[in-house]
């Protein structure tokens, strides 16, 4: 295609505007306590937000960077889907960075450079066209988040994160290296339907490698083990970026890998079912775990796990539906992709809310909060929008993507699928998950913002810094508008999905019900507005009194606690949770060790330690014995080469 001078100039200047400032920002972290870096990063985030408009202006959005390596050149290629992802991710990134510049006191000045580096690597990873750039950027994302997560003295969580993501990274490298070898070209936009070349077994193996590889970042069971500790021990902004922007990156690359590069075929149905079951188990586990956490950040960690599991469920259903109608596949993939974007918006909002709350109260446990809605009404409004979106309450954006998911499970086309028996179970599981998650957020919100203050910090929160509410307001507004104006967004994403996967049909024909998010939202808001207006006609007096306490007075501990709140559910789902309460002396405590730790990771750990103990026996520290080991190895190796 002929690219005229004007558009190539536009493209070049766009890319320079996007990547040059944060690259400079990496070196200015220590100048005037990081302010220069913040500004540079924010500038390129704004440029990133413009990615979708720019994409519509240039016919082919691709470029090659003027540097390369022995393994090939670094080039990027942006299609519609990528540009939407870049736009939304940049928006989220901008808001997190803005909030960070107000309250990022947890970071040393040098750490701001890492934020710039994270921006560059996330964007490169999404836009990359050559395998080598993708792998380098993906690795950089892991390492940078690892470096950004050093907070208090406890080093274990972040090392755990690094280990688990490297297991995943290894799988991703294997999968992409294999595909590269087969395809014969490093340019990924030329990879189409490689599954038909490599045969069913290999394509299933590659798909599973990709799924697990990116699943480690998304918290698929049993690789979620790093999440809760990492979330609770790291600075909130790190995890906010990790759970939103990095998850976006992972889902985008996973989606392209499974549906564009490998391509679907009938052989994928059975692995699709297996991955789907794995995802729904993850979702349930995340939901149930989030119920019993006592730290807001840990609740959010498990909820990320649940949300991302719903996304991976959609992607694996895409494999399952590959024998059925194409529009159903388009629908379920759209549900997954839309949920990813929605999640990045509402989850970053909630992360920032939790950070603000921790900031103003100086507390970090659920049972030390309470009554913050009275002291900080503005914060409580944006937080309510966030939890409502997370709990998939109409007309927020979370509801729209869950609606799409349920539509894809209830569609009439499902009946032609061999795996239709799975659908009622998935509807049931989604229902249970959805309600547990709603409970968990009602709990999160209720015990932070409502009730009476449970600690000095919550009773007298320090005032919020001026302007620190702005990013939260923008994100809350995005939650609402992505809900109300979901249809154009859905159409745009659906177009993008069609071009990446080669599905010929749109999602609309698979829909079996109607949904007008805007109208629904207006109906709800309009009805409430009418009710308020009617009750304004004849106002009644409102007398303020103390909370009713059967004649006594209540102190701050005499109210329902967040742990007590979740106890009925814990009792109902007793077999899943096991015994959570313990008695130590005169004190009753609730604690919970994940069975995955108990039954998988600890035995592995014990085994490795035992093997290492044995190995120390031969490490005598004596140079002669080492030389003899080398000699023995050489002899064995030579013999092996000769004989085999």
């Amino acid at each position: 295609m002929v690219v005229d001078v004007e558009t190539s100039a536009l493209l070049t200047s766009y890319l320079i505007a996007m990547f040059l400032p944060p690259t400079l920002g990496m070196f200015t972290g220590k100048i005037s306590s990081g302010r220069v870096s913040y500004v540079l990063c924010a500038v390129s985030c704004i440029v990133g937000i413009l990615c979708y408009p720019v994409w519509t202006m240039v016919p082919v959005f691709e470029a090659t960077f003027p540097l390369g390596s022995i393994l090939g050149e670094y080039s990027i290629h942006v299609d519609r889907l990528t540009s939407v992802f870049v736009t939304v991710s940049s928006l989220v990134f901008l808001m997190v960075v803005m909030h960070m510049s107000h309250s990022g006191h947890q970071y040393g000045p040098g750490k701001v450079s890492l934020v710039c580096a994270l921006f560059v690597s996330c964007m490169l990873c999404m836009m990359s066209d050559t395998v080598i750039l993708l792998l380098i950027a993906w690795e950089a994302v892991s390492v940078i988040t690892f470096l950004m997560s050093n907070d208090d003295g406890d080093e274990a969580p972040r090392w755990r994160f690094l280990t688990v993501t490297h297991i995943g990274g290894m799988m991703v490298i294997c999968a992409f290296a294999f595909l590269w070898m087969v395809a014969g070209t490093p340019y990924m936009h030329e990879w189409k339907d490689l599954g038909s070349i490599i045969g069913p077994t290999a394509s299933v193996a590659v798909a599973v490698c990709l799924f697990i590889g990116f699943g480690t970042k998304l918290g698929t069971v049993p690789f979620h083990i790093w999440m809760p500790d990492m979330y609770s021990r790291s600075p909130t902004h790190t995890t906010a970026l990790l759970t939103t922007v990095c998850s976006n990156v992972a889902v985008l690359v996973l989606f392209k890998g499974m549906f564009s590069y490998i391509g679907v075929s009938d052989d994928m149905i059975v692995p699709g079912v297996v991955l789907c079951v794995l995802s729904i188990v993850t979702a349930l586990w995340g939901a149930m775990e989030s119920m019993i956490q006592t730290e807001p950040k840990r609740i959010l960690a498990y909820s990320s796990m649940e949300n991302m599991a719903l996304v991976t469920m959609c992607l694996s259903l895409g494999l399952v539906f590959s024998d059925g109608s194409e529009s159903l596949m388009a629908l379920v993939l759209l549900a997954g992709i839309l949920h990813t974007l929605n999640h990045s918006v509402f989850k970053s909002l909630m992360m920032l809310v939790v950070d603000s709350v921790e900031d103003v109260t100086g507390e970090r446990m659920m049972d030390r909060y309470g009554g913050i809605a009275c002291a900080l009404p503005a914060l409580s409004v944006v937080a309510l929008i966030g939890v409502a979106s997370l709990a998939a309450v109409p007309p927020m954006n979370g509801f729209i993507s869950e609606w799409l998911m349920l539509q894809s499970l209830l569609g009439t086309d499902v009946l032609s699928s061999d795996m239709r028996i799975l659908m009622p179970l998935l509807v049931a599981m989604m229902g249970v998950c959805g309600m547990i998650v709603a409970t968990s957020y009602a709990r999160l919100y209720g015990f932070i913002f409502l009730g009476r203050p449970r600690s000095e910090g919550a009773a007298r929160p320090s005032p919020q810094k001026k302007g620190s509410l702005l990013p939260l307001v923008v994100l809350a507004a995005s939650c609402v508008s992505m809900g109300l104006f979901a249809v154009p967004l859905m159409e745009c994403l659906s177009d993008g999905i069609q071009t990446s996967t080669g599905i010929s049909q749109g999602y609309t024909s698979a829909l079996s019900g109607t949904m007008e998010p805007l109208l629904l939202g207006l109906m709800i808001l309009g009805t409430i507005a009418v009710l308020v207006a009617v009750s304004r006609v004849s106002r009644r007096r409102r007398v303020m009194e103390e909370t009713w306490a059967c004649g006594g007075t209540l102190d701050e501990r005499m109210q329902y606690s967040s742990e007590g709140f979740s106890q009925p559910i814990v009792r109902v789902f007793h077999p899943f949770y096991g015994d959570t309460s313990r008695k130590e002396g005169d004190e009753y405590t609730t604690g919970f060790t994940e069975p995955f730790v108990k039954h998988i990771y600890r035995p592995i750990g014990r085994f490795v330690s035992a093997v290492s103990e044995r190995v120390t026996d031969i490490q005598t520290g004596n140079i002669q014995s080492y030389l003899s080991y080398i000699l023995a190895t050489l002899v064995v190796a030579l013999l092996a080469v000769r004989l085999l």
Partner: protein
Amino acid sequence: MMGIVIGAVQALALVLIAPLVTGIVSKLKALMQGRSGADILQPYRDLRKLFGKDSVTSRSTSWIFRAVPYVCLGSMVVLAMMVPFIHTHTLAPFGDLVAVVYLFTLYRFAMVLGGLEGGSTFGGMGSSREMMMSVLIEPALLLAISTLAVLSGAGTDMGDISGALSEMGLLAIGPALILAGASFIITMLAENARVPFDNPTTHLELTMVHEAMLLEYSGRGLAMMELSSMIRLTVFMAMLGSMFFPWGVATTMDPSDLLVSVLVTVAKMLTIILVVATVESVLCKTRLFKTPNLLTASFMLSLMAMISLYIL
């Protein structure tokens, strides 16, 4: 145009008869217990009295406490517009059964937050128990209505399901409909805080679920919460009548059809009211941690209903 009028009329009718339905249930219960009971119009008087009263609010409540009654009542009014009642045409080109189920979630979410306001122990307890029950109720509800959608093959729009089922005639009666209907009846009792799940007339806050959440409300706020729970009961009864036993519901604009439909609907509603009143009179409230057994039964019934569609 005619459709909009019909839709508006039936939504209005649903909202207006809601207190009457509650009144009839109480009256029937009283008669079965050998009392004469209050007049069936008593709920209207109660509501009028409450609407006219000043309210007392706890000092430790925030704006959410005041917003909750509006959200609850608003969501129930929107729901009344989306449910087929006399006619299959609803006022809802904007949502389907998933939206209906999630509107119940909105209602419950708001109410639970309202219960956590004020920082009393009872509100928190009510909220906690409500959420425990809803974890099992809501999926059962979703599955039961989805079963109808798949059974009718008419998609997930509420009105279409009702119309398609009534056109199927007696063919629609099968394991799926019966199982889903049974599940829905249990769900209806649980969702509306009726015996055996909750006792709306008890005087002990400790034993209550729904009322415990409303404990801090008074005056107009209480009136709105009460009205919205009355609408919720009526909406459930309407759904049971017009979707699980949809025969007789008008599908055309023919006046004779409409007349028949009104009569049939009244008969159905009275039957359902009688069933509810009988259940409430012969059963007693179960212990809180026994209710999950019944709720799980409802959940399994609806799951089996849906599965039966896919394998039979």
